[in-house]
């Protein structure tokens, strides 16, 4: 059984017990434990079930590479699935449940799949479920979905907060082992801005466990001394629990910092996403030990040799009493030695190499450990935990030589440098034959904005497995990176720390154990523990023609689980290359993509959640709207009242009331959101003549003109009223959503095409609160407020004037989008609310009512006015909307003019705007199509028009609509049939688009 040792455990505090829940069971751990070490200390070896066969699985690793130990963590709003037990720090009250089993971890019905494994090889799903076609949707998929997936999706809204932080750094070092520390020392002495991040809660990495000598002291002492020295330097920032998640173009790096999650539910942000721009990046990300591929290598109790060592040294936890070490290298002997020193039994070290005579093997032999050279494991026996191993000759097919009883197997297939961050932004790899690993190719580093190399890999991440070369390599890289980043001082190379550790003999690659293993054995030799991919699956993929590593990956799902193949990729592609009779470097690796380990979606959102999810734009009058029943609709990022609901009213009733009241008496509209651009300069008139289809240069001062803007494609892009303010000054109104876009459009032409024209533009949209005062009593209201002359004579239709109204400085535009007598009054935004209140108070005697955007829409549709975004969709030209009158014939050029001369634009067969009236007075569905005879080439019904705006008109008491119809204006009176998703097609007659007050009598008073 696995248990807590009396000795060892450098990271745990034996005086501080921590209570936690696993699958509802209360367990005790120690402060400093991970969930994994605490579970193991409680003899909880079994942590989950595998994805496909539901095989019992235990912890394999001790770090970020762990494939099996995934749990549902936390409760309610703090719940998160797929949390790795090896990297989750224990805290008091932690609640975790294991995943992927039913009904319980110990007894899982799905485990039947393991007996069906022969019938569930790679590609099984693709082959089995392709026929008959309809079965997929109705039979297969619903069943498969029930049994698929890791963990549970959270049900509650995330209760935690998150944040971002932007940092600009000269030298960013990712990985706080001795390599990273050495690089940091070097870079820091140059005065460069240095940041060192470490994903775990501790500095020093593996060296603290393997304990080489550095600068004549223990590694642990050197690490502590170095961290202290770095902490004292103002140009160095040290961050624990911060993972380098991804390296991107131009030195952009994401760092993922855990702030409070190791404390449980607590105040403050849970995670911080560092958004870093680094001039130089050093990846000191270490290496990951590789498993060996033998039958039963997934049985709980089979762990990486380094992990067995870590659990003993760091946490004082033994996996078992009798540990068999199986390896192809010297380093794994450290595990055997460590276990012996802890007083545990190591019955044998099984070494695939014919001889093992190095320093470490000698030490092991001196401790009395039996070393079996040239041997391998034929299979591991056991169910929910290891009971014994069957030893065979590595060179053979697996014939049993002896069986050794044990409860733990520590395996080591050599080390793979963590090259992920090096590779994210284009760094290439070379195959190191001697060490059987892919390592960074310094000749092909990621390139930065000046074409410079901007990432350097150091230490074991660079394929240097020994302390002396790790320290020297990392220190030199730190110096050189600082210099490349333009550090103020030079720094001394001679200051590089010195270190030494045991001499090690070369490893011998062993991609399959034994090398001639039978199918029976290969079908139980796991490569990818999380996705249940075995040696036999990869061989099958090769046999079936999936020769590219990328294809084989997708066919078998090797490396596609949440661990992204940290343990399985190299072993998998070695098996693939062997099956294809080619060399490993010729097969190559799959692509390394960020993030290094999964990061939470919430950290990516940062502070942008709930009411900060996106910026909402409010007008100076919004508070009043909110207090008076406004039902908002989004218009761009603005919120505009759609209607103001009174007690007991439906939205529809409110809209109708607002329309009727405005038509009969007086309405107010908050029009502050309309874009307002000041265009000024000696060439402003000439410029506006290019921007608008109309002639704006001839507009007299004091007058207004409705204008259209088109893109160079000829399509209508915006509209609004333009007022001539002065000799060289115009004010252009845009649509609510259009202010920023049209401002940019104008600047584009002024800066990039006509840069010699003297014109300045300023966006003054938000400077002004604008209110449309609309209805037969509009003038009476303004006259009651008193001030400027708003009479028909003084301020005729389509003119503007400055003055005061009720004591407010105001500009009044006599314009109308409703067909009523109407003024739009602009006042400074700071006085907008006061002005609004004054209008409401003075308007009380006229029964004044504010109206929302829907009433605005209905009234403009009754008048046949177009709306950008309803009648236009980026394919509509002014001619389609019968707006020829707004296209200046006198001008030789305006934006869009040339395009409108193209044959397709001038084609009389275009769909053009008409009014539509249903025969029964009902309201046409929005977007409905007018059906034509016959079918098109795709066997869809032909169409001859579509509805662009449709409303119930309370003024006319029937449905009214506008639409684009094939040669529409020539077909007045014709009846068309429109599609209706919810029922029978609807018949509607083509009519004039102006439904109300055709003569304009109401607005011209």
């Amino acid at each position, binding site marked *: 059984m696995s248990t807590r040792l009396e000795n060892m455990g450098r990271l745990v505090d034996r005086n501080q017990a921590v209570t936690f829940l696993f699958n509802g069971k209360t367990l005790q751990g120690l402060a400093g434990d991970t969930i994994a070490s605490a579970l193991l200390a409680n003899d909880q070896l079994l942590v989950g079930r595998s994805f496909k066969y539901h095989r019992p699985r235990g912890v394999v690793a001790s770090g970020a590479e762990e494939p099996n130990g995934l749990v549902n963590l936390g409760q309610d709003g703090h719940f998160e699935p797929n949390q790795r037990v090896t990297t989750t720090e224990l805290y008091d009250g932690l609640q975790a449940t294991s995943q992927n089993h039913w009904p319980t971890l110990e007894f899982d019905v799905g485990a039947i799949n393991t007996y069906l494994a022969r019938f569930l090889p790679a590609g099984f799903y693709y082959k089995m479920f392709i026929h008959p076609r309809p079965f997929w949707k109705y039979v297969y998929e619903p069943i498969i979905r029930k049994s698929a997936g890791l963990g549970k999706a959270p049900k509650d809204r995330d209760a935690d907060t998150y*944040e971002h932080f932007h940092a600009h750094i000269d030298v960013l070092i990712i990985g706080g082992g001795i390599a990273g520390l050495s690089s940091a020392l070097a870079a820091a002495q140059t005065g460069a801005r240095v940041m060192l991040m470490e994903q775990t809660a501790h500095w020093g990495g593996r060296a603290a466990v393997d304990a080489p000598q550095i600068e004549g002291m223990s590694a642990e002492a050197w690490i502590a001394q170095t961290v202290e020295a770095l902490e004292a330097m103002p140009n160095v920032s040290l961050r624990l629990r911060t993972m380098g998640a991804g390296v991107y173009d131009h030195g952009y790096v994401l760092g993922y910092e855990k702030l409070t999650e190791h404390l449980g539910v607590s105040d403050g942000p849970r995670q911080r996403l560092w958004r870093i721009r680094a001039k130089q990046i050093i990846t000191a990300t270490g290496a990951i030990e590789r498993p060996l591929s033998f039958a039963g290598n997934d049985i709980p109790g089979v762990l990486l040799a380094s992990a067995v060592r870590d659990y003993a040294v760091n946490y004082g936890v033994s996996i078992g009493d009798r540990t068999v070490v199986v390896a192809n290298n010297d380093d794994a002997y450290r595990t055997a030695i460590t276990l012996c020193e802890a007083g545990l039994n190591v019955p044998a070290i099984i070494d695939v190499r014919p001889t093992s005579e190095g320093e470490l093997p000698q030490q092991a032999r001196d401790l009395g450990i039996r070393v079996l050279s040239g041997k391998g494991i034929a299979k591991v026996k056991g169910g929910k935990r290891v009971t014994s191993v069957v030893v065979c000759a590595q060179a053979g097919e697996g014939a049993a030589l002896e069986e050794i009883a044990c409860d733990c197997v520590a395996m080591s297939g050599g080390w793979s440098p963590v090259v992920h961050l090096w590779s994210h932004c284009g760094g290439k790899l070379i195959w190191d034959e001697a060490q059987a690993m892919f390592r960074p190719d310094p000749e092909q580093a990621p390139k930065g904005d000046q074409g410079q190399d901007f990432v350097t890999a150091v230490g074991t991440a660079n394929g240097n497995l020994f302390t002396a070369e790790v320290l020297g390599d990392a220190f030199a890289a730190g110096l050189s990176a600082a210099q490349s980043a333009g550090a103020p001082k030079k720094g001394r190379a001679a200051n590089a720390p010195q270190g030494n550790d045991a001499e090690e003999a070369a490893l011998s690659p062993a991609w399959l154990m034994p090398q001639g293993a039978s199918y029976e054995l290969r079908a139980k030799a796991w490569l990818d523990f999380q996705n249940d991919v075995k040696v036999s699956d990869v061989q099958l993929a090769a046999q079936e023609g999936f020769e590219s590593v990328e294809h084989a990956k997708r066919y078998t799902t090797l490396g596609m689980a949440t661990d992204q193949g940290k343990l399985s990729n190299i072993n998998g592609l070695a098996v693939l290359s062997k099956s294809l009779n080619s060399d490993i470097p010729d097969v190559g690796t799959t692509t390394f993509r960020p993030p290094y380990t999964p990061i939470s979606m919430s950290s990516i959102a940062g*502070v*942008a959640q709930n009411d900060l999810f996106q910026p909402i734009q409010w007008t*100076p009058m919004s508070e009043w709207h909110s207090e008076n029943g406004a039902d908002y609709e989004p218009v761009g*990022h*603005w919120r505009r009242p759609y209607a103001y609901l009174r007690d007991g009213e439906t939205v529809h009733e409110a809209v109708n009331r607002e329309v009727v009241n405005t038509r009969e008496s007086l309405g107010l509209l908050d029009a502050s959101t309309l874009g307002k651009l*000041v265009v000024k300069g000696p060439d402003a008139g000439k410029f506006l003549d290019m921007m608008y289809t109309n002639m704006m240069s001839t507009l007299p001062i004091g007058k207004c003109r409705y204008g259209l803007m088109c893109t160079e494609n000829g399509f209508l892009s915006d509209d609004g009223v333009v007022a001539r303010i002065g000799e060289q000054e115009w004010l252009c109104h845009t649509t609510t959503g259009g202010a920023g876009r049209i401002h940019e459009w104008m600047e584009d032409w002024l800066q990039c095409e006509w840069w010699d024209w003297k014109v300045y533009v300023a966006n003054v949209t*938000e400077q002004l609160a604008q209110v449309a005062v609309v209805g037969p009593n509009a003038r009476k209201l303004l006259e009651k407020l008193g001030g400027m002359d708003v009479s028909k004579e003084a301020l005729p239709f389509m003119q503007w004037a400055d003055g005061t109204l009720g004591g407010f400085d105001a500009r009044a535009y006599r314009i109308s989008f409703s067909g009523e007598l109407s003024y739009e009054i602009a006042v400074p935004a700071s*006085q907008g609310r006061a002005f609004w209140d004054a209008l409401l108070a003075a308007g009380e005697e006229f029964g004044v009512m504010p109206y929302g955007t829907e009433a605005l829409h209905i009234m403009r549709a009754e008048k046949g006015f177009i709306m950008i975004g309803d009648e236009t969709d980026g394919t509509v030209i002014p001619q389609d909307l019968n707006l020829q009158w707004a296209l200046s014939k006198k001008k030789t050029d305006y934006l869009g003019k040339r395009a409108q001369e193209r044959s397709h634009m001038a084609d009389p067969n275009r769909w053009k705007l008409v009014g539509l009236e249903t025969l029964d007075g009902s309201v046409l569905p929005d977007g409905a199509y007018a059906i034509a005879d016959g079918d098109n080439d795709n066997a869809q019904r032909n169409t001859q028009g579509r509805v662009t705006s449709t409303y119930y008109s309370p003024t006319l008491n029937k449905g009214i609509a506008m639409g684009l119809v094939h040669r529409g204006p020539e077909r007045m009176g014709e009846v068309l049939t429109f599609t209706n998703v919810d029922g029978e097609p609807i018949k509607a007659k083509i009519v004039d688009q102006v439904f109300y007050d055709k003569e304009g009598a109401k607005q011209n008073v």
Partner: protein
Amino acid sequence: MSNAVSALNGLTAAGDVTVKEAGLRGMITLRGDFSSRKFKNICTELSGMGFPEQGKANCDGDRGLCWMSPDEILLLVAHDDVAESLTKIEKALKGQHYLAANVSDARAQISVSGPFAREVIAKLAPADLHPDHFQPGDFRRTRLGQVAAAFWLTETGAIEIICFRSVADYTFRLLAASAKAGPVGYFTV
């Protein structure tokens, strides 16, 4: 007028770092030719401050000059002095090609002050705010979260932010949330 109110009417979120809307401020967007002596003179006359270099702001209290672009200055004056300033500008630049627009009410000014004010901004803006790089007098136009903003550092270590009025509420809450979340411990100054 006395009934004028700023976007957030002086709203304050007090804490280790305090976020406060500055109230009514006078702001004039002035576009023109920076090589014109008359242009520079009227700027310095109305603000009482020197004409700023590229990327700088010279501000003191509610008066100042901010470098917005190679042909745009943001002139800060008292809110009540805007109309008079505009008249003076018109007089001084008569005959020149320029544009002066009152944008006092189009903007909101928010002040962030306290020990880690710099970090509060660095949580939200992609600009380099390291003390080596961003000092009193520097002026930066960039983003805060998802909206445009401009800011400068005062001699006392407070950061003055200008954003659009319509998103003052968003910007304020963004800053208040970032201040409440506490220090990062990254900037040592």
